[in-house]
């Protein structure tokens, strides 16, 4: 009676490729069938270019009143200004979504059916990470290029910059890379904390609160701590070249961010396997 559809026999062993494909397909459906994904990505797409335009316009508008050293900084690396403004706020949508993707499974209880379907927990987490990172990367690029082009057009008179300039294309692509890793970072925190509100607070603290606090530390200690904080290090990828007082190059900074994320994901996977669901 429950067998109207002929199902393949149980016990045949599907290849690793087939099993991976099933996992990815399932995680894809999970991601695209909840509204929070749609809302977060829509906000990202609206906020990032919008605020990039607003902030670069404000800088351009107040050009004559700005401090000469500030103007020199902007001229030296306009990309850094363009990508450093809209993304600062746009990234919060990815922080929230990353947490929801994992902690949402705990808050709704769906983690239990997920683990009943896929009792090997590490592959489940890996598939979730892969799907989420790819989706965020694609949307990250979808906002990085328009944001850059809008910002560059607005700054054109005072600080001209184009995609062909050294390091600029890497920085713009880096905008999407940064968001993808940030999404995984938030996902890892969500997996560790397992409560949406707590995890979102934790991620926001990492991204927005710790940096100014670290700068209050005295002398070179503060400078070093600040430079190695995850989002501070990671956002260096959005600069065309290393500024003279930066401790890390763009790729080094991005590497530090990736390292943070890998360590947290490793911890999340370890705990996921150890903890009762």
């Amino acid at each position, binding site marked *: *009676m*429950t*067998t*109207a*559809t002929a*199902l*393949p026999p*149980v016990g045949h*062993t*599907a290849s690793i490729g*087939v*099993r991976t494909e*099933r*996992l990815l*397909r*399932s995680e894809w*459906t*999970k991601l695209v*069938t*909840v*509204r*929070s994904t749609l809302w977060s990505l829509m906000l990202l797409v609206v906020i990032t270019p919008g605020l990039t335009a607003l902030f670069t316009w404000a800088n351009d508008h107040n050009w004559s009143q700005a401090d000469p050293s500030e103007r020199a900084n902007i001229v030296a690396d306009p990309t850094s200004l363009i990508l450093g403004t809209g993304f600062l706020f746009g990234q919060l949508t990815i922080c929230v979504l990353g947490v929801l993707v994992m902690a*949402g*499974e705990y808050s*709704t*209880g*769906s*983690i*239990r*059916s*997920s*683990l*009943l*379907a*896929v*009792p*090997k927990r590490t592959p489940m987490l890996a598939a979730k990470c892969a799907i989420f990172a790819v989706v965020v990367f694609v949307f990250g690029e979808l906002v990085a290029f328009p944001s850059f082009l809008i910002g560059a057009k607005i700054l054109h008179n005072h600080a001209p910059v184009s995609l062909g300039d050294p390091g600029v294309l890497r920085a713009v692509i880096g905008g999407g890379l940064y968001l993808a890793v940030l999404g995984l970072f938030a996902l890892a925190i969500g997996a560790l904390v397992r409560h949406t509100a707590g995890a979102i607070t934790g991620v926001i603290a990492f991204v927005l609160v710790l940096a100014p606090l670290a700068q209050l530390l005295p002398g070179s200690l503060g400078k070093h701590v600040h430079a190695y904080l995850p989002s501070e290090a990671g956002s260096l990828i959005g600069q065309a070249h290393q500024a003279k007082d930066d401790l890390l190059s763009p790729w080094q900074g991005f590497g530090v961010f990736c390292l943070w994320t890998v360590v947290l994901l490793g911890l999340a996977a370890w705990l996921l396997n*150890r903890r*009762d*669901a």
Partner: protein
Amino acid sequence: MIEARDLSKRYGDKLAVDHLSFTVRPGTVTGFLGPNGSGKSTTMRLLLGLDRPDTGSATIDGRHYRDLAEPLRVVGALLEARAVHSGRSAYNNLLVLAQSQGLPRKRVDEVIELVGLGSVAKKRVKGFSLGMGQRLGIAAALLGNPDVLVLDEPVNGLDPEAILWIRNLLKRLASEGRTVFVSSHLMNEMAVTADHLIVIGRGKLMADCTTEEFIERSSEKSVLVKSPDVARLAELITADGGVIAATDGDGLTVRNLVAPQIGHLAASAGIELHELAPQAASLEEAFMELTRGSSEYEGSIGDAPAPLPTEGGAA
């Protein structure tokens, strides 16, 4: 076939499951009975690999749940707590599960029709009633057409029509040769659904037998007898080895003697009888008898709740 061997699980300082061993066989409905907090849900979570046992192990058809490649094809489970994403539609919740096992979309439509959720399949689960949520849980359990079903309190909060539906479904699944393991704290529900019972109290095994054996074993049988000459009858009964368990006006509840013996005593002494009725204990009473004092949360008023008095005196 489900096998639990020496399962134990401790949460903090509370031993939820205490060296529990049992076997659940195919082809029958096996009821898993115990008061609230006796460790039923924990045991099921251990079977399903959601929690790690502190001692022992559980296997399904000889394998640990975590080693099953396509677990939903082997075991269908309904957990007590809701285990679906409330922001996702019923259909999409099932689709996620189907895709993880390589099951076709058509199968999702089938189980949705089977549990009667066709009209709300595309609606978000958030607005579902308890009964609809349980039906969705059953659909998820049947999705992979598994040979083993593990259902935690499936009739909880359901209306009588839905309870009847689930009861018949479970019997039908068992008659198809599947292993059906279903927990409940409602003894009377198990009496009409389960052929075999595994009873636990405070995480320990208290009984593992057929439902009839359970009632037989767990409770003394008694006979209600009514007579206008109750005092003389009581003397005769006591002299013959009977025990008067209760007296109420012209009625006696007698243990240790069966109805024909009492009838014979009365007849030979010329005592008029108005009623002579063997009292079969209900499963509810048998269960309370067995688990008395083993309930995790007992009311502070008096002892375990007494069964309602039957006509003419205590049962």
